């Protein structure tokens, strides 16, 4: 978007191209520690995020489940669009997003680390998680249901396995696809809608199904 500053219809603010202020304006520049103008969701954008140039977001509701306490819990490159995405970083979570990504209403559920490269498209309904949310062992799950019950202590839960997820550059992820812990999606791969990805995806592969397998 080299013509960002030259646009005549859109407002430019620090080189950010967006529609003029008004009811039809869907996106706002993402600025750490600031409230978004006219936001329907009342949350200040967290301060512990690092944002490049020309990054826009629709609402602070994207941060509803952002609880990262790291110095930087979200790192975003430049020219990125975040539209209704849920950036659910837990206390120790770090979500990294490269340049020119478009993330639609996907959920990124991050206990430790989810890294997304550049020129990545993530469609609606996608879930990417670096843990299984609960322990696998039956005894661990008994303990977890007690910890998350109305009588439990949610800040103190049994340990779960966490394995970071890496989405390399130029990957496109289709509607309602699911990418689970420990997966690396190789450069240029395509995840078809609805796929459930449990294993690494090689570069330029196209995968579909549950569990996802390589097509073509």
């Amino acid at each position, binding site marked *: 978007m080299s013509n960002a500053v030259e646009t005549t219809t859109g407002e430019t603010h620090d080189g950010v191209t967006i529609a003029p202020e008004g009811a039809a304006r869907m996106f706002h520049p993402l600025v750490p520690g600031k409230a978004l103008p006219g936001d329907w969701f009342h949350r200040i954008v967290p301060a512990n995020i690092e944002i490049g140039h020309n990054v826009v977001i629709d609402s602070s509701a994207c941060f509803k489940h952002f609880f990262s306490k790291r110095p930087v819990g979200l790192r975003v490159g430049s020219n990125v669009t975040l539209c209704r995405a849920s950036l659910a970083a837990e206390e120790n979570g770090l979500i990294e997003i490269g340049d020119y990504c478009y993330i639609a209403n996907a959920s990124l559920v991050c206990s430790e680390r989810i890294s997304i490269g550049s020129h990545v498209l993530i469609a609606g309904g996608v879930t990417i998680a670096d843990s299984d949310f609960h322990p696998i062992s039956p005894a661990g799950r008994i303990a977890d249901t007690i910890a998350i*019950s109305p009588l439990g202590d949610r800040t*103190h839960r049994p340990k779960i396995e966490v394995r970071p997820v890496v989405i390399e550059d130029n990957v496109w992820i289709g509607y309602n696809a699911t990418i689970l812990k420990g997966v690396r999606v190789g450069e240029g791969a395509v995840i078809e809608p609805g796929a459930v990805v449990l294993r690494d995806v090689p570069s330029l592969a196209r995968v579909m199904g*549950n569990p996802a397998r390589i097509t073509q």
Partner: protein
Amino acid sequence: MSRMNLHRTYRDNDWYPGGIPGNVVIGEHVYIETSYAFAPCLAEDESAIVLGDASGAYDQATFVLGPRARVVVGPYSVLNCHLVCEQSIRIGGHCMLSWGVVVADTWLERDWPVERRREYLEAVIRHPHRALGPMSTPRQVVLEDNVWVGFDSVILPGVTIGRGSIIGSKTIVEEDVPAYSIVVGNPARLVRRLEPDDTESARADAFRKYLRPGGGFGNVRGH
């Protein structure tokens, strides 16, 4: 109208005005995010829904119950799912049913011809609540204790899931699942067995370790 509309419980801070029907039997320290969960509940039995102690019905929990339906949920279970019931769904204690999950005790019979399906839909518009009603003879669904159903999975009529098992995300379960198994995929397949380590002593230990002293965010009183 049925008597379920009598004795409804209305809670402050509930965005939905409908209230909790009087035939929901609620244990101690239960959390119900909103009474909207019961909006599609037409059950008439005087204890149609039983929610065990310290269980929770979170934002997506929905009870789609016909007039004769009965649902029992054990203690410490977490519901964030749709329960579609004409007869009986039994969920044990310490179960977790994630967002987007559907558990149904009735669904289309395989031998219904198109004509019958048309008649069925035409009958729906004559019902005052547009209730779909049973499409087949309902078949009880049972989730034994400590079953975890991952998001967007579907548990179909007649299925029993054995104690301690895990159903992976987006799995469609049409057949019984043995205890302590991991089942994933579509079609579902058994991929692993689990060590049955959820003994009574492990459970007692967990209570010692993970209860919050003096706490509790239960928001409905047991009755």
